[in-house]
Structure formats: structure tokens, C-alpha cells
């Protein structure tokens, strides 16, 4: 119960302060769930690869009609996000090959049948712009839905970041 007191009675923001305080109760996935989670992670990786190579047709095919992509974590404290893309504006980014890299890491899956939530991070590089802010790190929560046997990309919301830097190394621990 000490864990609970710390969780709900004290201010807690710093990840370092939290680490070791409590561990999440593990929910053991069934084999089916593991397979579905692996499928979603693979799907997400393929989608990011398509974004980088500018494969509009692929991203178009795997995006929900009402895809929403919320950039920037301002909304997590009641502020405005940096930007919100709908499907059309996101596909425009893909077409413009705006990103030179979008490398996923630390991604985990929360599965709810035909709906999957992923959370984790990607490290990305803009093709153009200020070289001092060329690389950036983004932590996110995403929602995917399985429709007619295929996963669709429904929503991205940045939960921390973007954090900018001049190179991959500078944002690799952000």
C-alpha cells in the first residue's frame, strides 16, 4: 500500500524519482495476444519505414479515413498541441519525404481485441530546417484498429516531446 500512497498522494513527475518505487503489475498475455502484439509492432515498423521512403500509397492504405496525428505534448497539460494532422496533411508529409529517419524504440503494446494501443518512442530526423534541431525524439501513444482483417492506423498523440538536437546522439536519451 506504500506504493499506492506514493502514487496518489504525492507529486510525482520525475521518471528517475519513480523508478524502483513501484513496478507495474504484469498482465501475462496469451499466445494469441502475443501474436497480435507482434503483428501490431511489425505493422507500426512497416508504416514508419513507408513514411521515410515517401510511400504514400502504402501509408494511405494502412491509415484510417479519420486518422489523427497530434504533434507535441502541450495537450498533456491542457495546452495546445504544436499541430494536428488529419489524414490528408499527414500524407502530404509522406509525399514530401519530410523525414530522413523515424526509428522506433522502446515500443510496447496494450491489446484490446481488435484495438491495439502502442506506446513508446521514435527518434527522427527532418530533411530540412535548422541543423541544430534536425533530430528529435518523440514519445507517443497510438491507437490501431483491426478492420476486415487488417490493422489501420487511427491515432497518434505525442505524450512527451519533441525534444530536438543536432544529431541522433543528442536526443537518444531524451
Amino acid at each position, binding site marked *: *500500500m*506504500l*506504493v*499506492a*500512497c*506514493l*502514487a*496518489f*498522494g*504525492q*507529486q*510525482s*513527475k520525475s*521518471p*528517475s524519482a*519513480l*523508478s524502483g*518505487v*513501484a*513496478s*507495474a*503489475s504484469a*498482465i501475462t498475455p496469451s499466445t494469441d495476444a502475443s501474436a497480435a502484439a507482434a503483428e501490431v509492432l511489425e505493422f507500426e515498423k512497416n508504416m514508419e519505414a513507408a513514411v521515410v521512403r515517401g510511400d504514400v500509397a502504402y501509408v494511405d492504405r494502412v491509415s*484510417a479515413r*479519420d486518422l*489523427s496525428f497530434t504533434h507535441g*505534448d*502541450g*495537450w*498533456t*497539460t*491542457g*495546452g*495546445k498541441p504544436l499541430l494536428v494532422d488529419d489524414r490528408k496533411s499527414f500524407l502530404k508529409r509522406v509525399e514530401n519525404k519530410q523525414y530522413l529517419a523515424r526509428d522506433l524504440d*522502446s515500443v510496447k503494446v*496494450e*491489446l*484490446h*481485441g481488435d*484495438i491495439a*494501443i502502442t*506506446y*513508446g*518512442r521514435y527518434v527522427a530526423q527532418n530533411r530540412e530546417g535548422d541543423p541544430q534541431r534536425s533530430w528529435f525524439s518523440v*514519445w507517443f*501513444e497510438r*491507437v490501431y*484498429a483491426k478492420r476486415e482483417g487488417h490493422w489501420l492506423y*487511427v*491515432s497518434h*498523440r505525442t*505524450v*512527451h516531446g519533441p525534444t530536438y538536437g543536432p544529431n541522433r546522439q543528442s536526443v537518444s536519451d531524451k
Partner: protein
Amino acid sequence: MRLLLVVLLLAPPAFPAESTAAAAEVLALERKIEDAVVRGDVAYVDSVLARDFSFVHGDAWTTGGKPLASDDKAAFLKRVADKEYLVHDLDLVKVETHGDIVITYGRYVSLYVPRSLGANPPRLNSIWFERVYAKRNGQWQFLSHRTVHGPTVSPAGVDPSAQPSTPAARP
């Protein structure tokens, strides 16, 4: 066939009315859930939580850390049964609709009073969240809560870390 084509061309491209209705339904449901949590209405909360419901406490996961705690449905219902929360007041909640999936985001002010609190006075906290709901068999179900910022001690319910929702006007 030609008539069908004309009808399709004249139809509105999206379904804003349905989307608005879904948003209103889910916002109402979310309020009802929080009320039920506070009054310890396990039966109601049980009826609207998905079987594989998940509630992630604390925002450490947003930077790759471990959350403070993760409740499955049974663990969350136990909190409800134990009436651990005296206050769960929603505030600034917005909605992102995707047909039969609705995402809500915003905050609630919480007064957590577990039996283990002892002599420590409870304090109000702000919890900013992203939640996911899905309509299944005609009913909205609460699938997932993830805290995206907090908990933050918030005297009188005022979160010192909150941002204004609109930028200040410049002279």
C-alpha cells in the same frame, strides 16, 4: 446505378452528426463512470469496463519509465469497492472520435483516501490522461486509461503545471 452515383456524390463526405453524438455519449459515460467510482458503485463500473480493461497510473511511462501502478479490471474494481476516491472531478476533457472508437483526453482532480493513508491528510491531485473507449454490441466500453501527466499535487484543484489552453494575447 446512375441514381446511386448521384446520391453518393450528394452525400456529405463525413459523418459530423454521428461523430458529435458519439462524442457526447462518451463524455456523458465518462462522467457517469467517475461518479460511480466515487460512490463505490462496483456493479455500474463493472458493466462499462471492457473485460481486458487497463488503467495505468502515473506518467513515468511517457519517458520510458515504469508506471506507478497498472490496474486490470479486477484491481480497478477493488479500488471502487474500497471507495478509495472521495473526489474524481473531470475537467477540460476533449474528444477525438473515430467511428466506434473514441479517445478522450483531459484531466480530473482526485482526492485519494485509501485505508492505508493513516494519519496522513489526503491531498488533491491533478491527473491528465488519455483514454480509449470502444462501442461494442451497441454499448460504449471503457478500454484504457493512461496518465499522461501527473499525479501533481493541486491545492484547491489548481494544477501548477497546467498550461493555458490558449496562448496569451500579445500587445
